[in-house]
């Protein structure tokens, strides 16, 4: 399988990448070729987590994924959270807790936290801290981000219980 023209599956849609260079990272292709600029580019060395996306359901730094090697994988970006015009529950919790300041780390954090709550709906604070340890935030001091995770987690638990009792 070579990469002169290749297809990436992003948020359930197929995107053709034409004339891509083999060195391009997934982050670069998402932002510059596919116009999905939600994933942010800061360090380009896997340090900051602002480019976090899901690759087959696992969080990775898209800056460290070779774009043409992601063919046939399911890529989920921040644009794939929520449904249509409705923002996701984690996004709402961020708004409620005031967990966004400059906002640059937010897309990566949202992808990380959404994935965390999908696998562990009721994480304790230590688990949350480890889960977001690869997402740097220079503004908030993390207090309100942790609060947002708690809100989103409580809401999901309440919703699950409500659905069970129906």
């Amino acid at each position: 399988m070579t990469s002169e023209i290749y297809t990436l599956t992003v948020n359930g849609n197929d995107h053709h990448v034409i004339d891509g260079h083999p060195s391009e990272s997934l982050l670069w292709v998402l932002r510059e070729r596919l116009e999905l600029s939600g994933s942010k580019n800061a360090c380009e060395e896997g340090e900051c987590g602002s480019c976090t996306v899901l690759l087959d359901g696992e969080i990775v730094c898209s800056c460290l994924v070779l774009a043409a090697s992601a063919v046939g994988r399911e890529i989920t970006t921040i644009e794939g959270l929520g449904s249509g015009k409705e923002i996701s529950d984690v996004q709402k919790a961020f708004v409620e807790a005031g967990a966004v300041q400059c906002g640059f780390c937010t897309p990566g954090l949202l992808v990380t936290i959404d994935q965390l709550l999908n696998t562990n709906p009721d994480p304790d604070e230590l688990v949350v801290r480890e889960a977001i340890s690869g997402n740097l935030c220079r503004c908030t001091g993390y207090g309100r981000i942790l609060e947002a995770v708690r809100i989103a987690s409580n809401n999901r638990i309440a919703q699950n219980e409500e659905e069970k009792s129906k």
Partner: protein
Amino acid sequence: MGVIIAKSVNEACAVLAENPATTVLAGGTDLMVQANRGAHSLESVLDLSRIPELKNWSLEGSEMVLGAGISYTDLADPQIAALVPALTQAARTVGSPQIRNAGTLGGNLATASPAGDTIPVLVAMDAVLQLKSSTENREIAITEFITGVKTNALKPGEIIQSIKMPVFQGPQEFLKVGTRNAMVISVVSLALVTDFLGRKLRVGVGSVSPVPFRATAAEEFIAQEFDWETNSALSEKVINKFSELVADSTKPIDDHRGTADYRKHAVGVLAKRALERVCAGEKS
């Protein structure tokens, strides 16, 4: 050429045999940093990340074989953690969850950085790498595989297929010094593996020399002093001597992460702490 996503080890070896200059990609956590900086232009790439056989592991008797494509996250598997706890500890200190999902054991070895987190553990256990090309299978000891700072003994056309190591009976510790818990490249690291059957304490050290090695003088000393019957706590004098011998065996350098003096001091502290932890009745 572009990017070739290999589906099997044989396919990967065939691609490399035809074009040995192809860049091999595993988890990408080192290679892509270079590519993003423009330091490494990737004209043709062989991606090993989707070869199922490289992600397998097995236990045959007291020998464990780990596929080179196993990620740091995979090393947290409770079954693996029960057999080689220090390796799981080391894997958990790598980068962040994002990095641990992508980075692989084989990649850590091929990159051959003195700061590679799994390396001190594998050195302590005398791990052997199983290499494969289209024409040859061979085995090489980890201390011979890593030939210098970020250089290895891979021949053109070869890939790391798996890493095999004995499973030892007894407690293990991996310790690492860095500036914080996450996203840390080690300033010094140390692995201590007890081998109750062989009556040996095996010590691997990291970030203190161009090529990894075992602290054999310290190992020989402590094998005599260790209480192999009851594994009880050791005297302060013995612990300090062990710590000193480990520190003396290292040849660290000054760099942007720390000075040689600090590294020598810190590796001694790690040796002491690890020894206290593997003795019964001592809690960290």
